[in-house]
């Protein structure tokens, strides 16, 4: 579920960073406005609770496996959507920084998939169905239904973002077919876990759950927000999908600041390739590889014969240099210490 950086293009990652960053800023403002100062420590501790709660597993009825709480829907029920979104975003940030669980570039995507969707789509649904009757059979159903919807939407987000990035070759359709059933199951487990914990809390301390609705949300602004987000993201995705099959050129342009750099880059390659043909050792391999190259990657025609061989040699040498540098840097302070 956590996306890694390695499969994401900067364009998609950047777009989702912007969306999630905006949401964080927005929710931070909301939390500050409705302040409720006690939320400051409560949010922090609840984030730690979700982490710690994952140490406790339950066996999933009817199967041999076990599951635990992911916590998105639960946080929304306990803290209200604004605070819950910030807590989830902070959990994902810590996971990405300390466990490499989801990349840094992918953080925007992960916050959107696992924060925005459960909190601003699944939770309003939960509220709509239960109308405050926590612990009732209706609430169990609501919790399962909304958790499933939240997770499936999240999985769909993963697929969309990966496909739009164009680094993985996995076709959209089969990716969906793999991801959706898995997340349907995870959603069921999440819904069960959420319902059982919420109903426990409701029995033990009903006032905790009753205190929230005042700070709650109206459905309409959420729907509007969702529509806007969908438009932005859909627009961005379809633009990448149509103009740039792999969304790469655009990002190169963005990073290097102009289209010319990509062009000059290619020129250098061509130029060097020509130079390479004159001076190359192993000319056979170079030529042979070059032909295949030209056919295979029309998306990046600048990769050429010479580039491959010299890339191989230079690449391994560079790798060697990296290792040596690492060792040298490591030795240095020790020598100082002596």
């Amino acid at each position: 579920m956590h996306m890694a950086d390695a499969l994401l293009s900067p364009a998609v990652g950047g777009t989702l960073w912007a969306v999630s960053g905006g949401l964080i800023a927005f929710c931070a403002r909301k939390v500050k406005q409705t302040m409720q100062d006690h939320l400051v420590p409560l949010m922090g501790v609840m984030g730690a609770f979700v982490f710690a709660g994952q140490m406790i597993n339950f066996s999933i009825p009817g199967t041999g496996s076990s599951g635990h709480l992911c916590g998105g829907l639960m946080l929304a029920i306990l803290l209200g959507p604004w605070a819950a979104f910030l807590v989830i975003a902070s959990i994902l940030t810590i996971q990405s920084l300390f466990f490499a669980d989801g990349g840094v570039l992918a953080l925007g995507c992960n916050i959107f998939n696992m924060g925005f969707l459960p909190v601003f789509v699944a939770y309003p649904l939960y509220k709509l169905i239960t109308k405050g009757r926590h612990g009732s059979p209706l609430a169990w159903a609501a919790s399962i239904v909304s958790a499933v919807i939240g997770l499936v939407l999240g999985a769909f987000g993963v697929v969309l973002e990966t496909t739009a990035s164009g680094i993985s070759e996995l076709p959209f359709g089969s990716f969906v077919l793999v991801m959706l059933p898995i997340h349907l199951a995870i959603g069921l487990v999440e819904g069960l876990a959420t319902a059982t914990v919420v109903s426990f809390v409701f029995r033990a301390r009903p006032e905790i759950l009753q205190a929230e609705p005042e700070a709650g949300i109206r459905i309409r602004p959420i729907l509007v927000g969702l529509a806007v987000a969908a438009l932005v993201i859909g627009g961005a995705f379809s633009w990448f999908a149509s103009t740039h099959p792999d969304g790469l050129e655009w990002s190169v342009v963005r990073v290097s600041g102009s289209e010319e750099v990509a062009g000059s880059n290619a020129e250098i390659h061509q130029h060097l390739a020509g130079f390479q043909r004159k001076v190359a050792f192993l000319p056979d391999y170079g030529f042979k590889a070059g032909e295949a190259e030209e056919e295979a990657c029309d998306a990046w025609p600048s990769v050429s014969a010479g580039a491959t061989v010299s890339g191989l040699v230079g690449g391994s040498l560079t790798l060697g240099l990296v290792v040596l540098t690492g060792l040298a840097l490591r030795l240095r302070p020790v020598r100082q210490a002596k």
Partner: protein
Amino acid sequence: MRLADWTEIGRMDELGRMDSPVHRLDPRAKVLVSLVFIVLVMSFPRYEISALVPFLFYPVGLIALARIPMRHIMKKMLIAAPFALLIGLVNPLFDRQPMCSVGPLELSGGWVSFISILFRFVLTVSAALALVAGTGMYRLGAGLERLGLPRVFAMQLLFLYRYLFVISDEAARIMRGVRLRSVGSGALGLRVYGSLVGQLLLRSMDRADRIYQAMVARGFDGEIRLLQQSVPGWCDAVFAGCSLILLGAARVWNLSDLLGIWLAGGVS
């Protein structure tokens, strides 16, 4: 999250509190360079490998200078790898066009892009881990706040991190109690699970309440103020400037290729 992960987070925390030239750099400079690094790495076309190699200098240099055990970073990378690995492995299945050959071996485009994905994974993950292990959560959080992260969120990160250790101790105590009284696996029935996690939840909320009392007792008014941080010095500017120039150069020119060509030229 398993128990072993907690010792891991503790280990990262220890690394983050060491003292080294890297730890002494302004966190903002490190965050900036690391972000640029990740975006640059991911901006390469999907079949690129050789041009990515010089990028290794950055994480390796950072890790070595910060005196972080390389083994530790590698172990963490292995644990995090499966998802990228799994999705990446699909590439050779779908993209079978031959692309280049190394000696008698012919590589399809799918394999090349798979290797490229692995390389990107190693680069981005090691850079992020090096940033955290070479900065520490506190300095990182304070630095992010000064880079414009909303204060509410920066404090949320720091509070969450602060109480991770406390709450996880409580969860571990609960689990120990359960294990002492039950036989078999650690997985529980749904009803027991609900009451255990519910207990943990209520205890956590009570703790939050006491923390709030303690904050109020010392004049908390909704705003959290941090001590003044050091101002960035010329060291930080040099680090950021040089890294950005080198990274930019490695993005524009394929340095591995240039090295190879230069060598080839020299040989013949």
